[in-house]
């Protein structure tokens, strides 16, 4: 099976803002490096990381919104603007902000047709698109700020569906939603995946979102992929100490299962203070001297599972308090 989207050795640098005048060359800051993974058709791929890990930048790089080096292939071929734009769609973290504020919902969701000059015959109506995400047609006359959080997400989903893409990238699809509505959106995504064979790239810092939706997940730390693998396996047996800490850090609503111990200390260092060697060594409970000097590479340690750690394959679950 060919991968739907293949990322190989992706690197993103960003220019720091200089003064008001560009004196000399402004400094460049490395955001992402050595990112490699593939996305298969019809699967939900979860990308997890804390704020500052570069996950949103990765999504933008994959959509060609930020300049990047490395190889990106969509449907087996090098990225072409048209192929990418028609084959993928993005759902943004803040759905209201991702809708043009002076455009009615109806116009906004058929915007992709207008952009790509799709003949009328091949277009779905706004009402139809709204129906696909379970919204009444009357909503087409509203403006974005008149929508509730859940409605706005559905509208964005409707817009994403317009061109029948193969891949939808969803950035924090449940951020800011109450738990009672969260499920709604996740269920909608599951339905779309099932009914339309859509692949999803779900970007989140919230592991619990991925637990029930993702087929495979990748863990990002300070611009480096530290672990990838099938969701169930990663949740059950995280190999990277960071992954393990993330999972262990999730607060448990059951008072009877309170953690006795802290899974991880300290904070993610700023991008300007990227540690040498393994980027995680400053917080890693297992770090050894080698971790401080030598950067590990991302290696496949089992079929479908990759890991960026010198202490590869060590089972870290034992350490993980439950």
């Amino acid at each position, binding site marked *: 099976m060919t991968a739907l989207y293949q990322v190989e050795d992706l690197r993103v640098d960003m220019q*720091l*803002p200089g*003064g*008001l005048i560009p004196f000399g060359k402004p400094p460049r800051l490395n955001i992402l490096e050595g990112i490699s993974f593939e996305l298969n058709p019809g699967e939900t791929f979860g990308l997890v990381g804390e704020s500052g890990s570069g996950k949103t930048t990765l999504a933008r790089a994959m959509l060609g919104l930020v300049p990047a080096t490395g190889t990106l292939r969509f449907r087996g071929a090098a990225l072409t603007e048209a192929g990418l734009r028609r084959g993928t769609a993005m759902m943004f973290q803040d759905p209201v902000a991702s809708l043009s504020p002076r455009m009615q919902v109806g116009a906004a969701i058929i915007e992709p047709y207008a952009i790509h000059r799709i003949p009328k015959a091949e277009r779905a109506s706004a009402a139809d698109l709204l129906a696909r995400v379970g919204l009444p047609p009357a909503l087409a006359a509203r403006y974005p700020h008149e929508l509730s959080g859940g409605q706005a997400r559905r509208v964005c989903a409707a817009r994403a569906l317009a061109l029948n893409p193969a891949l939808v990238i969803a950035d924090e699809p449940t951020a800011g939603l109450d738990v009672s509505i969260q499920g709604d959106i996740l269920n909608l995504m599951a339905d779309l995946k099932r009914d339309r064979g859509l692949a999803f790239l779900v970007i989140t810092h919230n592991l619990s979102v991925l637990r029930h939706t993702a087929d495979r997940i990748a863990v990002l730390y300070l611009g480096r992929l530290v672990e990838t693998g099938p969701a169930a396996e990663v949740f059950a047996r995280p190999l990277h100490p960071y992954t393990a800490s993330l999972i262990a850090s999730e607060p448990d609503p059951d008072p009877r299962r309170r953690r006795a111990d802290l899974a991880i200390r300290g904070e993610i260092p700023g991008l300007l203070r990227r540690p040498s060697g393994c980027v995680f060594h400053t917080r890693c409970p297992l770090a050894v001297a080698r971790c401080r000097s030598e950067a590990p590479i991302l290696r496949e340690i089992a079929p479908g599972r990759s890991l960026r750690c010198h202490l590869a394959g060590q089972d870290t679950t034992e350490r993980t308090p439950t």
Partner: protein
Amino acid sequence: MLTYAVKRIGLAVVILFTVMLAMYAMVFLVPGDPASLALGPRATPALKAELIARMGLDQPVQVQVWNFFANALQGNLGYDVWSKKPVLDQILEVFPNTLILGVVALGWALVLGVALGCLAVVWRGTLVDTALGILSVSMIAVPSFVIALYSLLVFAVWLNWLPAVGAGTPGDWGSQARAVILPAFAIGITWVGYLARLVRASMLEVMGANHIRTARAFGLSEARIVTRYALRLAIIPTVAILAVGFGAILSSAVFVETVFSRPGIGTLITSAVAKRNYPVVMGTTLFMTAFYLFVVTAADLIIARLDPRVRDVFRG
């Protein structure tokens, strides 16, 4: 802070250079040569030749430009085509008058504007607030030179309370003070309105901020919250606007000084325009631009002291 200051000052210098270049380039838009144009009636060829030589207008353009910059950096803004006095001397001679006018105008505007702004905050939402709002906007709207003219007519001519022209006798503080009242009133009134609006808006914005709630949650007295927590932030936009305002006030001084025949930068430049005394026009404009940049830069540095977030923006 040092990096920020260096960058901010560097920016001001670059802007000043750009402005200088632009002002200089305008000379070449003058039809005919500026020297003889300036000398006017009954001017002798010898005078013209002398002027051309002194202004360096017989040199190639690039030499002229170079000379201009080299001179300007040494504080030499060229020579008045008539009096042959250095332009800078003329400017420095009258500048104190304009400066006094600006400071007095902005000063009384600041006192009254801040007071009205605070009143509006205190009585927020009441009829007083609405009335103050309309009053402030009206003050902003009325052109200062119209106020100047009418106040001249009423207070100087009709009532004869205050002098109608001039800046008072040098050395006589009383007469200088009396001479500055009407022009400062005319220029400042717009700024009473601006500042009242601004202070009201920024006070309301700051008083609604989360950290004010924190300070309240820790039981700090309202007086302490206002003076230590709110004012320091609310003052920032005021400082920024005051700097810009100083530039604007010096600009409106052109009209008001003319109305009151008050010696100053404004009358210097208008009389120079009338004589097409371009070196004076250019020199004055450059000087005021430099002064404006100085004030704005100083204000930015003050703001950076008041607000640590600003200086760190440049840290990179």
